[in-house]
């Protein structure tokens, strides 16, 4: 059986809906993947949900979805087949209630595609099937046909929030109340967006990715380049937890480099990168290690969209009171 990795074909949508790609999504059920770290940044979920609703798109959340389990695979705590089985369980449930799965986190996005990729190895495919069969027995059978089977050519397609927002950008701009005039903004993509090849041909894989910069420009801001633009945030598949003294050097260089070009803030499409680059304790540790206080604010693209749309501060940047200078950014953008 040929296993598809489920990445949405963006080029095909552009061909079929050259005037207005938003039309492709009309009437489709969009499911928002629950990234664990959205707990710390509820504005990430709110931002995309609020935008979809403003564009008359149908959105839902899958209650039965678990964590993508990428972190356990990366730490060798589960096998490839177990990782693929967790992924299939999630995709199976989501496939029942969604046509398109929107993902706000690079890590989850990578996991969702990688889990399907592993199934291309016959041995992993077989083991995954056996694991799911075991689950079916344990659970006393299935509640719906195919519940514990590998999805064979499902309807569902997976899409990163950044790719989605970029594709429908001309429609997004019409829903915004504010702009980014007078702000210099540095972009951070995150390794598992920047270096991912699964859903791209070789040319786009190697070419500079500029979607964030293009969006900044479209929203009236000035994108600024900086030397560490393509560098990792420092999370490094939990290196920041395991070897914090070393990994924080990466975080420091990144933040410092963006401060050096006087960026007003750092924009990114991933809550894991956001966690690493904004956590007050990490900023304190950086100050201890490098004797320098870095206070550049950081923001997720979905949070920014919510601010630009004029949503309440509490909704856009909920729980972020301790993030460096985030309130200041909100005030600057929303000044009448």
């Amino acid at each position, binding site marked *: 059986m040929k296993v598809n990795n489920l990445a949405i074909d963006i080029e095909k949508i552009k061909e079929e809906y050259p005037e207005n790609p938003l039309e492709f999504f009309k009437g489709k059920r969009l499911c928002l993947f629950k990234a664990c770290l959205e707990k710390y940044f509820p504005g990430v979920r709110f931002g995309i949900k609020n935008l979809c609703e403003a564009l008359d798109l149908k959105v839902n959340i899958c209650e039965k979805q678990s964590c993508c389990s990428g972190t356990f695979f990366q730490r060798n705590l589960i096998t490839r087949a177990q990782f693929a089985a967790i992924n299939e369980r999630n995709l199976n449930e989501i496939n029942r209630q969604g046509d398109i799965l929107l993902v706000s986190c690079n890590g989850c996005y990578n996991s969702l595609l990688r889990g399907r990729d592993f199934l291309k190895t016959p041995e992993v495919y077989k083991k995954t099937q056996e694991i799911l069969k075991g*689950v079916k027995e344990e659970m006393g059978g299935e509640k719906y046909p195919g519940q514990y089977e590998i999805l064979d050519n499902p309807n569902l397609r997976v899409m990163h929030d950044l790719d989605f927002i970029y594709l429908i950008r001309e429609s997004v701009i019409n829903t915004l109340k504010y702009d980014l005039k007078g702000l210099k903004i540095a972009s951070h993509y995150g390794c598992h967006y920047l*270096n991912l090849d699964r859903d791209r041909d070789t040319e786009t894989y190697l070419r500079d990715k500029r979607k964030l910069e293009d969006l900044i420009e479209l929203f009236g801001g000035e994108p600024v380049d900086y030397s560490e633009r393509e560098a990792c945030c420092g999370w490094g598949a939990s290196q920041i937890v395991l070897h914090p003294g070393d990994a924080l050097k*990466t975080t420091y260089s990144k933040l410092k480099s963006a401060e050096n070009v006087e960026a007003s803030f750092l924009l990114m499409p991933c809550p894991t990168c956001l966690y690493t680059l904004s956590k007050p304790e990490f900023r304190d540790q950086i100050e201890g290690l490098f004797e320098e206080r870095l206070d550049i604010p950081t923001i997720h693209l979905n949070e920014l969209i919510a601010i630009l749309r004029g949503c309440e501060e509490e909704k856009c940047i909920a729980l972020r009171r301790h993030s460096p200078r985030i309130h200041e950014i909100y005030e600057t953008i929303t000044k009448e």
Partner: protein
Amino acid sequence: MTNVNIESDEEWSYDFLESLVEDIEENRNIMQCISCGKCVGECPAAKISNFNIRKIISKVLRGDRSVLKDSDIWYCYLCERCKRVCPKEGINIPLLIINLRNESFKKGYGPKYNDLTKYVDMASRFLTNGTVLDDPLDGELSEDRVKELDKICDFARIKYVFKARNANQQKDSDKEESQEKKESEIL
């Protein structure tokens, strides 16, 4: 095969690589490595530690199993940058690293559970509420769903980590109890 100067073909020994390939076919492509060092030049782990992926690959290709004991293999960020810059097709370094770490774990060289404290917590949350955090944004997964995850993870390291933590907690609470008992006896 240690202490060899890798000038001629005779220095290579693919037994070790073959054993890695047995598990993950994709690792076979590592044989195509031309040792150009592009991956090292772009590697974030190399910038902040002694981690050198070219050396690791060279050890694997020389059949030098001491690489499994090297602490270096635990420094990779799994960021996939090397995959992007490598001039050769299909070399999947992050997957090689994960595989080497697996082998290292199997031999008992990997990080001990004590070094994985954070993972112990995450593992126990995953196997009780289906996420890596306490009080997840959308609430906990239902019992049935957690049972499915638990079954999928049968015999996985994640379960040993979880059990080791429970056993440690039991030990701690036993210790506390006996301490309390001692204290009450003293009082």
